[in-house]
């Protein structure tokens, strides 16, 4: 017989379990997936091209919309790259606060991940519990930055403003409560026989395969490879903090779930340390006159400050010619920004290294040979964000 035995089905862009607009073309032999082909680009907004026509401070606002589950991590990666290009040092208080925000966003992103992943596999209760905790974090962020989802608070040179007095007590409350909440999620899922049957031995990737496919983040660490940008290339004073990096053993969906829950606990530790050891001082590099705008009070008094503020807002600044790359460990993996500067006030080329884009390239390898129902578990375990993949 010359006809093909395989059935091609389309897991279309509009699908409740694809975490965004991802299209998967699956060739099935009965229930087994023979070939999987992800089609992306349904959210390609042209961020890299758009950044070439905006000044450096203006292009910062585009970065919130990349990994929209944790907006401040993207801001941090962008600012680290531009500050490396400009070669300015950030005051300690700003660095500690950046760490605090980044870890709060990591907790929020992992909460969202466990909520949607559990929802895909049928456990709906976890969604409501995790969203309750995520709401607490969103409210704290709104208290400081004014926005829940797209803060743009970490600016080039430091932060946009200092934290209000009511912020730290609320963080303290949250940090004390969080371990008990994570215990609740563990009670619901970790020893649950249905959860184990649906996640153990699914989508296994060995450490070497992960490295070959360029996979970073919790997926790589669940396969046993110790690579965390916070430990390998510490940025923003991460070397002052004492935390562990959880590693998995087998590299299946269950290990990735355990790694992420443990990372939430370690992030909690970091937030506690950042709060307890927060130094005093300015929150922006006030000696970098071309970059950091002056204080509002100075603008109404001093003509030089007014002119400087005007120039920074209108023209931005002109970094030296050259190229830099800076990366952070976001909740999905290594998020990096590569800048090529030609000396003008707009980036000549801004390339974003999205962790979810490279991780998704490994999806066909993960699910070929598995059953169709496990595709949903595999997609959920990689933790993709289409805003980052398609940019």
């Amino acid at each position, binding site marked *: 017989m010359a006809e093909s035995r395989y059935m091609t089905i389309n897991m279309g862009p509009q699908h409740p379990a694809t975490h965004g607009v991802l299209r998967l073309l699956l060739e099935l032999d009965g229930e087994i997936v023979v070939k999987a082909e992800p089609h992306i680009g349904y*959210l390609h907004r042209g961020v890299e091209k758009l950044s070439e026509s905006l000044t450096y401070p203006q292009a910062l606002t585009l970065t919130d919309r990349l990994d929209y589950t944790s907006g401040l991590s993207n801001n941090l990666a962008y600012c680290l790259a531009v500050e490396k290009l400009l070669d300015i040092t950030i005051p300690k208080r700003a660095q500690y606060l950046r760490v605090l925000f980044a870890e709060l966003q990591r907790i929020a992103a992992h909460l969202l991940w466990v909520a949607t992943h559990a929802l895909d596999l049928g456990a709906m209760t976890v969604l409501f519990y995790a969203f309750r905790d995520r709401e607490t974090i969103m409210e704290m962020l709104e208290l400081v930055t004014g926005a829940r989802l*797209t803060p743009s608070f970490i600016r080039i040179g430091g932060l946009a403003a200092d934290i209000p007095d009511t912020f730290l007590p609320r963080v303290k409350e949250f940090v004390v409560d969080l371990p008990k909440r994570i215990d609740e999620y563990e009670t619901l899922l970790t020893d649950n026989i249905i959860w184990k049957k649906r996640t153990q031995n699914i989508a296994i990737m060995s450490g070497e395969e992960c490295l070959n496919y360029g996979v970073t983040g919790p997926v790589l660490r669940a396969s046993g490879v110790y690579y965390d940008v916070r430990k390998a290339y510490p940025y923003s004073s991460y070397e002052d903090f004492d935390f562990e990096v959880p590693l998995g053993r087998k590299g299946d969906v269950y290990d990735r779930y355990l790694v992420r829950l443990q990372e939430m606990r370690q992030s909690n530790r970091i937030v506690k340390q950042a709060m307890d050891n927060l130094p005093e001082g300015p929150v922006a590099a006030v000696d970098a006159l071309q970059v950091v705008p002056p204080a509002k009070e100075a603008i109404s008094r001093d003509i030089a400050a007014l002119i400087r503020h005007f120039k920074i807002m209108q023209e931005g600044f002109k970094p030296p010619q050259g190229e830099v790359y800076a990366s952070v460990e976001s909740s999905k993996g290594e998020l990096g920004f590569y800048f090529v500067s030609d000396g003008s006030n707009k980036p000549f080329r801004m390339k974003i290294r999205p962790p979810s884009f490279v991780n998704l390239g490994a999806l066909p390898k993960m699910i070929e040979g598995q059953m169709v129902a496990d595709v949903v578990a595999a997609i959920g375990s990689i933790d993709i964000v289409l805003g980052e993949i398609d940019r």
Partner: protein
Amino acid sequence: MGLEAATPASVQEVINWARKNSIWPVTFGLACCALEMMVASSATYDIARFGAEVFRPSPRQADLMIVAGTVTKKMAPLLKRIYEQMPEPKWVIAYGACACSGGIFQTYNVVQGVDQIIPVDVYVPGCPPRPEGLLKGIITLQEKIAVEPAEQRKLVSLPWGNNG
């Protein structure tokens, strides 16, 4: 059919009341605004009290399409297909600046507003709008449905023939 024109006003009021209090959305979250839509359906900003009890994954079982996020030119034909698969009566809320008018992305692959493709009933601006914005959008839509004349929507949506 002439059935719509023959409906008395009191019956139309009841029909509108039934329609507006049980609007079921189809899951159409595209980008960041989808997160705020998910939050609006969870505990703190419960959307179920306005009748949007369940988000139906299949458009055939939904009345409302909340376009939350940027519509790109690659996604546009699929959005139109999903819209056409929804049976009458159907409404559209454009949630977020990108769905209203393209947002901050004035680029080569972004449709400048979903109303270039499908008719929109309510626009909710913001980047992203707060979940209360979505609730206000639904309330505005409910007020709009309450005063709809009989001829505007088909009374019965048949599985064959021209359903508008």
